[in-house]
């Protein structure tokens, strides 16, 4: 009976501590205007991607030769139906940007999930097992770091044949090394701590120690890294589409729009400008949120 009270008491206290921690993180996040702006921009982009058919003013694929090169609405020849103007075949740029958000977000998040699974697994193994396993894994990390990531992704996407899945897998498999380095370093530091020693002393198996005691303590780093990695992955996907090894589908991507707009930059500045601003705003918003998240989750930073 006494034991039960004790254990439930401990659990209660634990829960209270955890919710206090959560509200502390939240308060820190909310106090920063840049991070709030980031959250709003992100919400707008995600909303636009989810509800693209309702948000986009026009059909993104509809061409119209008489309406080609319509400037944005605030310019002299602008039309309210095409707020950001039209492209070289008369398609509405705003609608294409709205649909383009889908590809960017899906690729960004999915590629990071692939990196996360590979990178965290290797990092845990490397830091926990040490020795020969560590040497091999860190050599693979060094090899990965030797290639410009964009170039490697470009070569493999082209070799495998461009598709949405290929891009996600290739970006995921070329971008995991940061997870491995960070998780390995954290595991190396954590395994010397008393609570890990205690877990081992009461007979926890190595796998249990790894998954129940070490892994959860790397979560805040993983969350922060993942946010920033999504921003990177969106930039990489845009670069791949810009270079012409995109998703290979009919759906517009921001990188593709900029590549097409480049040829018309002297006659229609709005063609490459707005898709680029969409990338800039999205990536900036993610970076701002990620940065604040780091400050909020890291108790060492004031």
């Amino acid at each position, binding site marked *: 009976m006494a034991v039960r009270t004790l254990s439930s008491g401990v659990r209660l206290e634990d829960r209270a501590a955890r919710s206090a921690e959560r509200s502390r993180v939240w308060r820190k996040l909310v106090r920063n205007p840049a991070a709030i702006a980031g959250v709003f921009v992100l919400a707008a982009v995600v909303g636009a991607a989810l509800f693209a058919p309702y948000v986009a003013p026009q059909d993104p694929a509809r061409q119209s030769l008489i309406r080609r090169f319509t400037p944005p609405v605030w310019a002299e020849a602008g039309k309210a139906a095409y707020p950001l103007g039209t492209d070289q075949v008369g398609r509405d740029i705003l609608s294409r940007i709205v649909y383009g958000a889908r590809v960017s977000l899906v690729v960004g998040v999915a590629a990071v999930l692939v990196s996360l699974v590979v990178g965290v697994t290797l990092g845990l193994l490397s830091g926990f097992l040490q020795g020969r396993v560590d040497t091999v894994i860190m050599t693979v990390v060094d090899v990965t770091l*030797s290639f410009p990531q964009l170039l490697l992704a470009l070569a493999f996407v082209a*070799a495998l044949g461009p598709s949405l899945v290929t891009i996600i897998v290739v970006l995921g498999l070329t971008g995991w090394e940061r997870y491995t380095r960070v998780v390995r370093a954290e595991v190396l530091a954590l395994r010397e701590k008393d609570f890990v020693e205690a877990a081992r002393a009461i007979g926890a198996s190595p796998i249990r120690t790894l998954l129940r005691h070490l892994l959860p303590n790397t979560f805040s780093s993983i969350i922060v890294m993942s946010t920033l990695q999504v921003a990177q992955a969106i930039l990489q996907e845009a670069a791949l589409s810009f270079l012409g090894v995109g998703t290979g589908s009919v759906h517009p991507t921001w990188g593709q729009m900029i590549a097409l707009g480049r040829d018309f930059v002297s006659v229609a500045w709005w063609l490459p400008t707005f898709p680029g601003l969409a990338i800039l705003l999205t*990536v*900036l918003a993610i970076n701002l949120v990620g940065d604040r998240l780091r400050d909020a989750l890291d108790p060492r930073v004031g």
Partner: protein
Amino acid sequence: MLSLLTRRLIRLVVVLAGVSVVTFSILQVSGDPVSLMMPEAPESDRAVLRQSMGFNDPLPVQFARFVRNIARGDFGQSFFHREPALPLVLERMPTTLLLTVLAMALSLSLALPIGILSAIRRNSVFDHSATLLVFLGTSMPVFWTGIMLILLFAVQLRWLPVSGWESWAALVLPAATLATFSTPLLLRIVRSSMLEVVNLDYVRTARAKGVSESLVICRHALTNAALPLVTVAGLQFGLLLGGAVITETVFAVPGVGRLIVGAIRQLDFPIVQAGVFLLALIVVLVNFAVDVLYIYLNPQIRVR
């Protein structure tokens, strides 16, 4: 000290072996190289070529041959140009290296003073503006920055050429574009490594002795902040080369990057492999040089 150097050398060789494996696998995952080489030929001819070029051999045999060939500088014939791939890449390398070095120099000349000042005046308006610029810089796609610079300086103001590499004026926009990509990364490192040393005891001692502020910063703080800076700058060299690849494409700079991107569109894999391998080789060598420099610069290691 010697044993550390030997360890670094061994790592260099092992990493290069890994780089060869990755480069080798680019062609392997592409499916059937022979049908890329001769798309119109009948299947029987392809089978003959496949046999004679050794594509039917077991993978380890093919890999051993690949390593032997690249050791002799032979990456095979370009499918498209019908000449050896390596010279095609090598003759464009000086252009890419010039672009990269120009951008690096421009970045350092911006990042060092701004980063140092940010660290000294921590949380000042200047520091916050610099941080904002870092955020903007790291969130802009390089190719878009390039196009926006073209729009402003070549199309609107007509000060500089839109593309090419013929005159010194043509180098300005590509180098500036690449620098907008690398400056924020360097700036952040300069600032954080300076922040780590400016409040240390020996810096305070120097100030207490009455050493002038500029001397404290240059002689005492900067020399110690330089170590992490050099290491990270070496690590970022790969990123910079990746940025160079895309910058060259935007400005039609006749460098390795544009060659590789063109080759990728034509599925001309010998050129892709030669280009990717050489750029990785440069990154590996730069990092090796940084490691050696680190051993040499760091008294803690040197004495041991």
